[in-house]
Every structure is written in C-alpha cells, then in structure tokens.
C-alpha cells in the first residue's frame, strides 16, 4: 500500500492550526521517526496518516497497490485493553479483520508465543502490568500482519525495563517486514530505533534527514535548539 503521500495537509480545530501544510512521502523500507517537542503535532500527524482524523485541507493518499485499512495498524501511548483475556484481546482484532474463529485462536496463540507472553494468555488483560499491556497491544497489531505499523509514543509511560522489552519487540516486528512509523520525543530512542527523522515543530515539517545526519548536523535552527535542549552537554 506504500508509499503514503501527504500533500499540503493541514488540520485545524476551532481555528487553531495543529498541522500546517505538511507535504511528505512515507516510503517502504526505513524506520521513520516523527520527532519533535511536546505540542509539535506528532500525534495528530500520525492520526492523519492512519485515518483516525481527516485533514481540514490537503490530501492523504496511499499510492501503492493492495490498499485497505486492514493493511495498517496503530499502537497508542496508553494501551487500550478490552475487559477480557490477553488472548481474547488479540483474537478480537482478528475477528474485526474477518478471520475465522479457529484461525483467530491459532494466530493469537502464535503471536503471543512470538512476543514471549504465552504464559499470560489467559490472564485478564486489564490487570497486566503496563509493559505487558503494551506488548499485548503490539501483539494485537502485529497479528493483523500489517504492512505499516504506526506507533504513538509507545514507551512514554513505561519504566526502562519495559521500554527495552517493547523496543525489542518493535525490532522483531520490523524484522518480519513491517514498515515502522513512530513518534517520540526521546532522542535516545529515535537514534536506537530510527533510520530517518521527520522533525516537526509547531505543526510544520521542518526537517527530514537520515538519523546520523540529523543528530550530528541538523539543518534547521529549530532542530538544533531541540537537540541542544534535550542534550545540554553537547
């Protein structure tokens, strides 16, 4: 379904512009990190890409073959667990994707196994730890076999141990051939998990660069200030 092409996309609520004329293309391959300070519009931009929000101006268009909602998935900052078991949470996503009951169960078990949570399959999802919940959320998205996975600050609420687990899992999903698009305001994470950076400031796409170039030689003053602010020792 990739590439995803945004053309002069704006999004405004009550006259306040949150995304301001963003044009970009997200292509197959590199892990794309949407980076920027709080309030830059990262989450809004991601929701526009995923189709949860409609732009107030401009167009969002999937240009590849085999399009459709089921080819993309999203994981949110706060995992939303349904009041049922971890396994049933994953099966629920598969059910909405139109998978038969027998295959649902099988695929849900397989994916829980793959993310190392087979032992908690029967536990009620809402009483799992935050890290486990986020991994179940990732497993639920991954089970759908998406071509693109959007991740909105997936580790913002997690402790370092759980963050490491989630990052490992993201690597696993990526190794399976899924394109990763992720927002973060954590520079270390952007470096670890990203191949290219889309730097957002005040709703505008200020800079787009490969990870290494971005951190060593940011082209824009905003990006430079952001990096300096986050890494004051540099």
């Amino acid at each position: 379904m990739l590439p995803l092409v945004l053309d002069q996309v704006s999004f405004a609520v009550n006259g306040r512009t949150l995304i301001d004329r963003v044009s970009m293309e997200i292509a197959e391959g590199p892990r794309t990190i949407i980076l920027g300070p709080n309030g830059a519009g990262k989450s809004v931009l991601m929701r526009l890409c995923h189709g949860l929000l409609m732009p107030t101006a401009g167009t969002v268009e999937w240009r590849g073959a085999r399009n459709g909602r089921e080819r993309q998935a999203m994981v949110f900052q706060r995992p939303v667990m349904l009041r049922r078991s971890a396994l049933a949470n994953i099966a629920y996503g598969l059910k909405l994707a139109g998978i038969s009951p027998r295959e649902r169960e099988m695929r849900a078990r397989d994916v829980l196994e793959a993310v190392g949570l087979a032992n908690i399959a029967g536990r009620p999802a809402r009483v799992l730890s935050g890290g486990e919940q986020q991994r179940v959320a990732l497993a639920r998205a991954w089970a759908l076999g998406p071509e693109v996975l959007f991740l909105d600050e997936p580790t913002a609420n997690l402790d370092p141990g759980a963050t490491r687990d989630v990052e490992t899992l993201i690597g696993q999903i990526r190794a399976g051939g899924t394109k990763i698009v992720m927002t973060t305001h954590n520079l270390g994470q952007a470096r670890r998990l990203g191949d290219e950076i889309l730097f957002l400031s005040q709703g505008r796409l200020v800079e787009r660069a490969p990870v290494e170039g971005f951190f060593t030689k940011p082209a824009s003053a905003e990006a430079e200030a952001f990096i300096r602010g986050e890494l004051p020792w540099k």
Partner: protein
Amino acid sequence: MGEILIALGEAGRLIVGAEAALVEIVLLSLRVSLTAVLIACAFGLPLGAAIAVGRFWGRRPLIVIVNALMGLPPVVVGLFVYLMLSRAGPLGQFGILFTPAAMVIAQTILILPIVAALSRQVIEDAWQEYREQLRSLGAGAMTSALTLLWDTRFSLVTIVLAGFGRAAAEVGAVIIVGGNIDGVTRVMTTAIALETSKGDLPLALGLGIILLTLILALNAAAYWVKEGAQRRYG
C-alpha cells in the same frame, strides 16, 4: 409502642410461617418487576449504547430528555397507561387494564429511561477510552456498541438493579393500572398501602421487611459481583 411491637412480632410470624397470602403477593411483585426490568433492559441497554456511540442529529436534546424522564412520577405514568388501556383508550380493545400485564407495561415505562440514561453515561465514558483503538481496528458503530456493552457489563449490573429497585418500590403506577385486586394484581407496595390504611399493621410490616431485605440483598450481591469482577478483570 406496644402495639407496634406486637405487630412486628406478628409480621415475623407471617414471614417465618411463609403465610400463603404473603407469599403470593411477594411472588407476584417479583414476577411483575422482574419482567419489567427484563423488557426495559432489552430496549434500554441498546438505546443507551446507541446514544453513547452514535453521532446523529438531535442527540443532545435526546440525552436531556432521557435524563429528565428518569424523574417520571409513577402516578403520572400510571395515569398515562390507564388512559391508554381503559375501555375508551387506543389500546382498550386488549382488555388488559387491571391485570399484571398492565402493571408490567407501567413499570417498564418507568424504568426504561433509568436504564437508558445511566447506561448511556457508563458506556460513553468507556467509549472515550476505547474510541480510537476500536476505530483503528476497523470497528463500525454497531460493533463498537456491542463491544462496549460487553466491556462495561459489571457496571451495567448495578444499573439493572437500580431499575429493579425502582420498579419493586413504586406504588403509584401499579395501584392505578393494577387496581390492587386481591389475588390478581396485589403486590407488596399496594398491599402495604392498603393494609396500613385498614390498620392491619402486621401484614404491612411483614411485607415492608421483605421488600427492604430483598432490595438490600440484591444490592449487596451486585456490589460484590462488581467488586470481585473489577479485582479480577480490572
């Protein structure tokens, strides 16, 4: 004071001895109010979910109206149903005035708004949390509503019981449309009203004690179910 104590003792004897007249009244009360609750839930819960999830014209006025209807005075409902069912009324041909069926209709009208309004509130709160995730997984309005009904099931139990409590405790509507006919439409509340005015305190007190105990036991059960489930399912 002595008279009251004697009446209390007599009431206890009636309850312990499971006096036939008393049992009959209690059973009819339960039959009428439980049927009314069942019907009210069959319509009220889906209605509550639809208003919570739906985006349609006139939604806000509808919420206000349903909320306001929670305060319907039972005698007014009784009067309305009486007019509908009386010989000259539009539904007079069915000849169900002064039957338990008429009482079920009146109580259903009385508690339907309670079930709909309270469930709407609970489901809308859950919807705030679930909305993006469900939409991301491709759930339409119908699927979302059903998912939310299931996921809020423990809170909905409390609402159903609130409806039952209201139905079992009201006297104004059933006395008008039922007529308090001995052995046919006499329920706990109408019997209490009648026996008190006749001065037969033991039966009135006995029924009062049973009514209170019943409501208390049901609410205790609901509380424990909800607490236990919340601990277990989060």
